[in-house]
């Protein structure tokens, strides 16, 4: 078992906050396939299309038959830990602050042996599972964990360094008015979050979710993502206390371009869904980026909740989908801008949600609880892309396979 992670002690105000550092980042283009799989929490390796040989490390030609057709496939992550050691000295700035660091060799059942990070609960010679996770440089790395879950397994310092676990961290949910806010707050507190702040705009307008949020004991902060001065004020006051930011602010109205006939709601959609994200990033981003090395409750993740139609437009919600696509594009820029600090951007893609605006749509719809569960799980697994619900998973799969086919299906109004 792992020693349970203790809540952080109050910081010594005379000590300098640790500057962000990153583990080695450079990879070959071929190796980025591992990162792509890690972003979704999948364990995938290159498998030769000609002879079937499973490859590791990633390469451009098959180690057995020299074929260059090496697609990434999900394979069994199981194997045996055949060697392990603890590194106690290093020139790497990132690992120097985190020593000792356990590494080892795992003989995979599917063939290759892999040098990897090793969870503290793995015993030499024991059966293990390889998890493909993103490290703080945002690259896919492999960590061996026990085949059976152990107590407090998530608290292993090496594993925690690769995840965005909410335990002992302070979370800001940006919009208390979103019907999913209480479920998110509850799931985060259930996952051990030290505090949940909930942004609240236009206090002069009551909303039904407030009572549920009050009952959970969250702290309300005046925050309206459409109001630059409000975002600036809250970021100045609380930016250094937000370890995970979950942007659930969303403006949605049905209709495509011609159905609406004006740009009124589209402007609101852009104000909230796109510019709101930008304002939050300009406000909270710098403070969070400066605290990614700040111990147990370091700043760790930025979560966007995006419609799956940000991948490919759904004309019934055409203008809204476009605003989501803009937000998705912006999140990619943020990934680049947060990269040096190691602050992870986790996009959670949802299909139609169980709320007023999707009321005329048939199921399946994503409930607030399902969304909250997937957000917390995604943070615990340190993911970058989470697809919540069947519709989003299906769309992501089609998007991967052929974006043009998906576009055609989406724009044929269900007649495909």
């Amino acid at each position, binding site marked *: 078992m792992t020693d349970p992670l203790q809540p952080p002690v109050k910081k010594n105000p005379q000590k300098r906050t640790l500057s962000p550092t990153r583990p080695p980042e450079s990879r070959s283009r071929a190796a980025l396939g591992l990162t792509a799989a890690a972003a979704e929490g999948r364990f995938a390796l290159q498998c030769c299309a000609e002879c079937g040989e499973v490859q590791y490390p990633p390469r451009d030609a098959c180690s057995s038959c020299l074929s260059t057709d090496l697609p990434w496939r999900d394979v069994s992550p199981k194997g045996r830990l055949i060697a392990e050691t603890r590194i106690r000295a290093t020139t790497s700035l990132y690992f120097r602050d985190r020593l000792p660091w356990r590494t080892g060799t795992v003989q995979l059942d599917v063939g290759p042996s892999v040098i990897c990070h090793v969870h503290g609960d793995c015993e030499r010679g024991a059966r293990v599972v390889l998890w493909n996770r993103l490290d703080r440089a945002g690259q896919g790395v492999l960590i061996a964990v026990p085949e059976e879950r152990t107590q407090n397994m998530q608290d292993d310092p090496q594993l925690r360094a690769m995840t965005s676990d909410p335990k002992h961290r302070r979370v800001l949910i940006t919009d208390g008015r979103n019907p999913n806010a209480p479920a998110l707050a509850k799931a985060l507190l259930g996952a051990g979050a030290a505090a949940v702040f909930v942004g609240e705009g*236009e*206090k*002069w*307008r009551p909303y039904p979710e407030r009572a549920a949020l009050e009952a959970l004991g969250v702290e309300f902060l005046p925050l309206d993502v459409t109001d630059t001065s409000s975002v600036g004020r809250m970021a100045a006051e609380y930016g250094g206390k937000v370890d995970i930011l979950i942007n659930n602010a969303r403006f949605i109205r049905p209709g495509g371009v011609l159905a609406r006939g004006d740009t009124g*709601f589209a402007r609101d959609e852009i104000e909230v869904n796109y510019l709101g994200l930008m304002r939050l990033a300009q406000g909270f981003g710098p403070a969070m980026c400066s605290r990614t090395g700040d111990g147990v409750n370091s700043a760790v993740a930025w979560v966007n909740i995006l419609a799956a139609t940000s991948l490919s437009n759904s004309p019934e919600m055409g203008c809204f989908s476009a605003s989501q696509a803009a937000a998705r594009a912006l999140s990619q820029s943020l990934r680049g801008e947060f990269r040096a600090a190691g602050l992870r951007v986790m996009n959670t893609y949802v299909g139609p949600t169980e709320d007023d605006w999707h009321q005329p749509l048939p199921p399946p719809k994503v409930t607030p609880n399902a969304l909250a569960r997937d957000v917390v799980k995604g943070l615990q697994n340190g993911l970058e892309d989470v697809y919540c619900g069947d519709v989003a998973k299906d769309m992501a799969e089609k998007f991967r396979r052929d974006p043009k086919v998906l576009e055609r299906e989406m724009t044929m109004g269900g007649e495909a």
Partner: protein
Amino acid sequence: MTSPLATLALALSSGAVEVIDLTHTLDPDFPVIVLPPEFGQCARFRMEEISAYDHRGPAWKWHNITMSEHTGTHFDAPCHWVSGRDLPQSAVDEIPVDRFVGPVVVIDCSAQSAQDPDFLMTPKHIVAWEREHGQIPEDAWVLMRSDWSKKSGAAYLNMQDDGPHSPGPAPEAIRFLIEHRAIRGFGTETVGTDAGQGMHLSPPYPAHFLLHGAGKYGLQCLCGLDRLPPTGAVLMAAPLKIRNGTGSPLRVLAMIEKGTA
């Protein structure tokens, strides 16, 4: 003999005539009217820095602002409502400027409003007020004082599950003011010229429907009406000159004789 304007100028400089402000500050968090969400909504006041003596413009500071014609303390022109859409001079840019300066009376309904957030001012209240202060002069602004401007936050709209609750005029009161007193316009301290529950009156939103149908003007989100005398003040309420504008945020000022409030 001194000219009337010279007398006024002297009175202003001596302080015998005071200028008071009846305007709320344009603030991003000031309430606006809330409609069912499938309808278009009133934009809130927003301000973005263009530059602030920095790399975006080294020696100057300025902002871009956005808002609705009906955000904050604002003026309603007749074309704001369907009943006034075809009237001549019904948009803010067409209204003759002399309509923007004129006499004003204040009917104090603050005691009733404190008792009952759904208080409706009726002709009976107006007549009772006239017994004390004299008949409302023709072509005057009539302001309904409720002290509602002293409320803030959720208490201002007072939104409940069955809609907002705030005082306003009864349909008969508006008819009386239009038909028997030939007023210029009607103003309130609440978010609209109508009561919070005005949609349930007949006609719905009677102040909007009747006033604008008769070519009269509206003023809402006023403050400081407790500083105005019941009669004898001059109101200055000039909306921005917006082409085909249905209303406009504005600075509402009043001139009062010292010691009359």
